[in-house]
């Protein structure tokens, strides 16, 4: 966990409101776990005051280059989208626990399900799994064809199905509609996206899996208890009835926390 001023090396607009940014700096060398996130101070001063959590989408360890993909939601991400090449951004990270992959072995099949800006962290995960020889079924859900991003990149390394709510691209409907069409057996699934989607995926998927949560954060490091989630009865350990999304998560075993 390091705080460093990373230098912006690229900023690219992917859709009407989604941007891809690349940043470089020494701390990127620590960003080895897909599913972890960085906590970004998008501007100096107090406007806005707090950091913004953004998932690690890809890392080039040699070039010490981090890629993030983010959607402009409010003030913070708007400012982020206006930051230019060569400017620096204060970044705290990597934070949290990412997607575990030790349980998967060469030849296994893994299902990756992403929705909207839940897609980015799955890309770094996909690369790691492919390296391991794990075969992937990837389902990416968006609202419309215009909102789709990262499809090509995923296509290069995996079998990808896109769903759109209006059917303007791929399967019409939700990611769960695509999950139900999978006939192959998969050993594990990994999912990230809006909470209702996570709930639906948990119910639909036919294996154990891991979900990555979004919670409002204060500190991002486990100190303020802003981001707690209740734990399912059977996961209570040492009397701890909650988990902190920032430091225990953001990735949890499906079913561990109540969402």
């Amino acid at each position: 966990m390091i705080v460093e001023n990373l230098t912006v090396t690229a900023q690219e607009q992917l859709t009407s409101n989604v941007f891809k940014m690349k940043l470089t700096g020494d701390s990127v060398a620590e960003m080895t776990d897909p599913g972890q996130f960085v906590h970004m101070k998008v501007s100096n001063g107090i406007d806005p005051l707090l950091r913004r959590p953004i998932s690690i989408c890809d890392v080039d360890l040699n070039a010490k280059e981090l890629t993030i993909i983010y959607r402009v939601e409010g003030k913070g991400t708007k400012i982020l989208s206006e930051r230019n090449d060569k400017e620096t951004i204060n970044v705290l990270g990597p934070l949290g626990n990412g997607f575990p992959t030790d349980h998967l072995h060469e030849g296994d099949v893994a299902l990756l399900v992403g929705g909207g800006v839940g897609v980015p962290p799955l890309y770094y995960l996909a690369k790691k799994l492919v390296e391991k020889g794990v075969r992937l079924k990837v389902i990416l859900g968006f609202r419309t064809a215009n909102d789709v991003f990262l499809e090509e990149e995923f296509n290069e390394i995996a079998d990808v199905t896109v769903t759109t709510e209006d059917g303007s691209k791929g399967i019409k409907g939700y990611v769960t509609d695509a999950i139900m069409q999978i006939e192959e057996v998969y050993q594990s699934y990994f999912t990230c996206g809006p909470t209702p989607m996570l709930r639906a995926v948990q119910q639909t998927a036919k294996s154990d899996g891991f979900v990555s949560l979004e919670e409002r954060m204060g500190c991002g490091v486990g100190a303020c208890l802003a981001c707690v989630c209740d734990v399912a009865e059977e996961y209570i350990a040492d009397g701890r009835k909650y988990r902190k999304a920032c430091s225990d998560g953001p990735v949890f075993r499906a079913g561990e926390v109540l969402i």
Partner: protein
Amino acid sequence: MSQLRVELPGLSMKNPVMPASGCFGFGQEYGRFYDLNQLGGITVKAVTTEERPGNPTPRVAEVDGGMLNAIGLQNPGLEHVTQHELPWLEKYDIPVMVNVAGFVMEDYIHVSKHLSKVKNVSAIELNISCPNVKVGGIQFGSDPEVAAELTRRVKEVATVPVYVKLSPNVTNIVDMAKAVESAGADGLSMINTLVGMKIDVKTGKPVIANKTGGLSGPAIKPVAIRMIHDVSQAVKIPIIGMGGIHTADDILEFFMAGASAVAVGTANFVDPFACPNLISDLEVRMNELGIEDINDIVGRSWGKCNDVLSSSR
């Protein structure tokens, strides 16, 4: 570093900066970033008799110049804290102040009594001002008589100094301060958060599940400075100042208002190294301004230290 040393009841601090309660857990998280021995002291999260699950999420919301929180005093309870959290801090050579909360007077008395016996507890901070707890709590913080009685009864059982943390959500904070001082408080912590709310215009509902939350951060600093300025002229016990500290100049401002030490809350979230950075910046800034000893400027805005200087030299 001796220009930074401050001595408060129970708190012998090599510098006047400690993290504020609730913003630093029980130290372990930030202990991963730096050696906590750099701090002047540490104030840990509110402790209650029993374990508390806290409020539903979302518990925080950002607002202009600050944030709202409604954590709801989540903590593992007195027993767990004394057996697992506080012992971890023993390896550090810094005073530990424990924030105590409750719902009825007996809660405060019980927790304070037991914490007094814990080896490394240097002082107790009575959180009579948490705006995020529905039952009780808030009354202690707005009625001088109730606050005084609570202080008196805790003082009867506590064997370490007792600080009372005042709520800014009152008409007359000087009356509150005087009441707890005459009830025996060893010091004051001020200010806790202002009660605030944010509404999501898309849903029409409050952003925070608890509806209201406590406003902290730079936005409340002018209120904190004003209150400390007023209270420090009316009481003799020392004040630990807090509310929006983000720079070394902010710390100097709190001292000049009348504080004798400071606590840093929200700034830790903005920068995990906030406290150690503030401590080193403070020294630099004091040298720039020619302040030889931080104690020299306590209350300078209303002439306290000027008086002391002119009478002693």
